């Protein structure tokens, strides 16, 4: 153990450095991201009406000058706090030299207030102010972002929290954590790099050395079997995220790792963390080493509490968790990108300037045969083989749940309905480099890189709605859509056709209850977002959890129940920004 004197001195130095950097940071962090939390009374309560000014300006991002889009001078934009039952009035002024927009992600509102240029309105021209106005009929954690071009990548986004009518947040204090990915490159240059040079940002590919190591450890025959499958398909088992930490600086509330966003707590308090993945292209695995998290809400909608040690959050998803820190010590808020190419951390502590141990990045995972939809018979736990270094899976070994318990838990989970999925005989054309021959439900799998975790990782199968939803009719109609892609050409689409190639919208009949079946015929994870209506996930639980964005693993099939109760045209798309830009976008018409 440390000597008392040394410890005292170290703490002094640390806190001195910490305070200095915390002061320096105050200039770059959005005002709402002050660490005191809600109970300190520092909350930026949104005025009514709210005025938002969209600008492009220089800003210090992780110690370097970038040129993001700011909202009221901040990137991310201000925390907008509304109350269930109020009428929201938001004036958005465009001070850019191009069109802009704001989409209120996950909010149920009239078609013309949804903020998608070309679908719900014409967009906001430079110099114009658009007046958004709608009744707030829900509560929870949401966010807002531009739906114009690639502006999201420039930081045109922010958190949106709606207090419940009774004002009870179920905790003594709360903090909002919005994760994002920033690049100093021009987003259009990023898109072009992806388009003309496959794997441009992937510096974690398999090498000759990996193959030789595999031959040594598992023999030539098995290695050949594995590698030949991937190579024959011309795909990479390490194709995990298109844009990686090689260009991204991951941010937590606008701050990078060095500037360490800090959330404060008092010992004994129950704290609600509202975690939003506001990134353009990054799935994150979020955990707080040494602290378990009780998930109470998914995509803003309440779920029955489920206690986990880690969860994966897809782009545009939100989770609320309750944590109760023990004692008087700092904890690291750790968000690791799915491909382990980077992370962002913050700190949960009792005073500014503290920090806890930051875990190391885990080994780069590899997709297994399940990703190709080829291993129907494999048991639930080893669907995807994990990182090369199987011993070093985890940075912390004090997690309570053992592998055995985890297996038992997994087998107790109800499973999603069995869906017979059929592909068109000719596949989906050149826009689809593969079709999942045997798509399966993967709702009870934690996802690539987390299969062998010995601690509790949230899976969609764990989510149970807090209460039944108003429409309990059985679906009368199935609509099936396939997620398709061609990584080599960077083509992304539904059913093999980009948005610019389809000849009409997806038709929902107003008032009907329908089942949307989606099949992921690609090797990537995709967060699929439906505007204007909730999707109830058929994960075998009752009540079903309700989502605005659903992440599909490779070769996965999911089914969702939807009440087509929102007349008009709505966007439906992959929330990976460059996939949407490439054409993985449809319009749903409810009439």
């Amino acid at each position, binding site marked *: 153990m440390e000597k008392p004197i040394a410890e005292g001195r170290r703490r002094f130095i640390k806190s001195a450095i910490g305070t200095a950097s915390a002061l320096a940071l105050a200039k770059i962090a959005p005002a709402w991201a002050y660490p005191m939390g809600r109970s300190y009374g520092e909350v930026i309560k949104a005025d009514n009406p709210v005025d938002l000014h969209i600008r492009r300006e220089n800003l210090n991002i992780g110690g370097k000058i970038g040129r993001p889009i700011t909202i009221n001078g901040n990137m991310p934009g201000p925390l907008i706090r509304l109350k269930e039952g109020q009428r929201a009035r938001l004036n958005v002024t465009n001070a850019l030299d191009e*069109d802009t927009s704001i989409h209120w992600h996950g909010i149920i509102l009239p078609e013309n207030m949804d903020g*998608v*240029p*070309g*679908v719900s*309105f*014409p*967009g906001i021209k430079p110099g114009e102010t658009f007046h958004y106005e709608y009744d707030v009929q829900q509560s929870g954690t949401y966010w807002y972002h531009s*739906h114009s*071009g690639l502006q999201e990548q420039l930081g045109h986004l922010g958190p949106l929290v709606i207090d419940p009518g009774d004002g009870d947040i179920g905790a003594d204090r709360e903090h909002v954590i919005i994760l994002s990915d920033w690049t100093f490159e*021009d987003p*259009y*240059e990023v*898109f*072009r*790099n992806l*388009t*003309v*040079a496959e794997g*441009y940002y992937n*510096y*974690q*590919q*398999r*090498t*000759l*050395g990996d193959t030789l190591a595999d031959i040594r450890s598992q023999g030539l025959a098995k290695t050949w079997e594995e590698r*030949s499958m991937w*190579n*024959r*398909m*011309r795909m990479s088992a390490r194709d995990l995220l298109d844009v990686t930490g090689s260009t991204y600086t991951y941010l937590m509330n606008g701050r990078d790792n060095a500037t360490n966003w800090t959330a404060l707590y008092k010992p004994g308090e129950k704290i609600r963390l509202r975690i939003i993945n506001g990134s353009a292209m990054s799935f994150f695995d979020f955990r707080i080493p040494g602290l378990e998290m009780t998930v109470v809400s998914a995509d803003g909608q309440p779920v029955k509490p489920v206690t986990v040690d880690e969860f994966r959050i897809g782009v545009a998803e939100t989770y609320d968790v309750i944590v109760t820190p023990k004692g008087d010590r700092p904890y690291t808020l750790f968000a690791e990108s799915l491909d382990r190419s980077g992370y962002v951390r913050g700190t949960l502590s009792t005073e500014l300037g503290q920090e806890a141990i930051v875990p190391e990045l885990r080994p780069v995972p590899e997709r297994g045969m399940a990703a190709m939809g080829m291993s129907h018979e494999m048991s639930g736990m080893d669907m995807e083989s994990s990182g090369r270094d199987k011993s070093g899976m985890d940075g912390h070994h004090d997690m309570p749940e053992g592998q055995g318990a985890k297996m038992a838990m997994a087998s107790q989970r109800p499973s999603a309905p069995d869906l017979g999925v059929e592909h068109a005989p000719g596949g989906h054309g*050149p*826009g*689809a*480099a*593969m079709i999942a021959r045997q798509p399966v439900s993967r709702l009870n799998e934690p996802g690539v890189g987390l299969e062998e975790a010995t601690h509790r990782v949230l899976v969609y199968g764990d989510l149970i709605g807090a209460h039944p939803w108003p429409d309990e009719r059985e679906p009368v109609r199935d609509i099936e859509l396939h997620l398709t892609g*061609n990584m*080599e*050409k*960077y*083509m992304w689409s539904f059913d093999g056709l*980009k*948005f*610019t*190639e*389809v*000849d*009409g*919208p997806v038709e929902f009949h107003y008032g009907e209850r329908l089942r949307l079946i989606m099949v992921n015929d690609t090797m990537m994870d995709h967060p699929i977002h439906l505007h204007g209506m909730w999707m109830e996930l058929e994960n075998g639980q009752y009540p079903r959890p309700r989502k605005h964005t659903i992440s599909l693993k490779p070769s996965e099939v999911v089914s969702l129940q939807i009440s087509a109760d929102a007349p008009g*045209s709505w*966007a439906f798309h992959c929330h990976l920004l460059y996939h*949407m*830009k490439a*054409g993985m*976008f*449809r*319009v749903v018409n409810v009439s």
Partner: protein
Amino acid sequence: MRTLKIVMSLSLAGMSVPLFAGHAEDHWPEPIKSYRTGQVLFDRLEVTRTDNDEDLIVWDMLAWYGGDRNRIYFKSEGENRSDDGEPAELESAELLASRLIAPFWEIQGGLGTRGSIASGAERENYLVFSLFGMAPYRFEMDNSLTVNEDGDIAVNIEAEYDIRLSQLSYLQPRLEMGAALTDAEEYDRPSGFNNVRMGLRYRYELSRELAPYIGVYWSRALGDKADRVRDQGGDESEIGVVVGVRMWF
């Protein structure tokens, strides 16, 4: 180079071909616009020293512009022998229309020319059809069939394979084969296999766009072509070392 890249990136932003209105109002913009881009790639731009102590400058490049299904290509290969006082020799210069017909394959058709780039030189003009793309096991391929004005048919096959040594370095074997289906006396291509060329190069990416390399190659004339070379007192096989750069913008 960077300027060009930015110009191309911006052209991505600006391109718009309204095909489908997914919305109620016609004057609204499309929510997702179609896009086109392009690339200029010098796969090989190298200085060669042959075993006959000859020095050559060799290029092998392509440029394309378009969307993801339809593109226009320009491809060119050639060499210039230093000290011979002659202008460079075009192995091919082709302008092609390209259509993606399968996830990894484009079918291409167009016009090409071969011969000395000297003005007034007699060149061989031809029609060309190519199957361009990636074969299973990730072999990059460009297979072409050419028909000249006299009806002579020739086939050319090129295949490259990247062995990744590290995240930035590669070992790349390369194979090129030429054959003629008909006797083309005028152009010195007897029917049958004419030549084979194998190369191996090691390249290191300074960036994704710029990768210098060193390598060796072995080439050999085959069949009747080999006899002809021998009859003319030439050497039917050649070995060389190359130093060059692979780059794109």
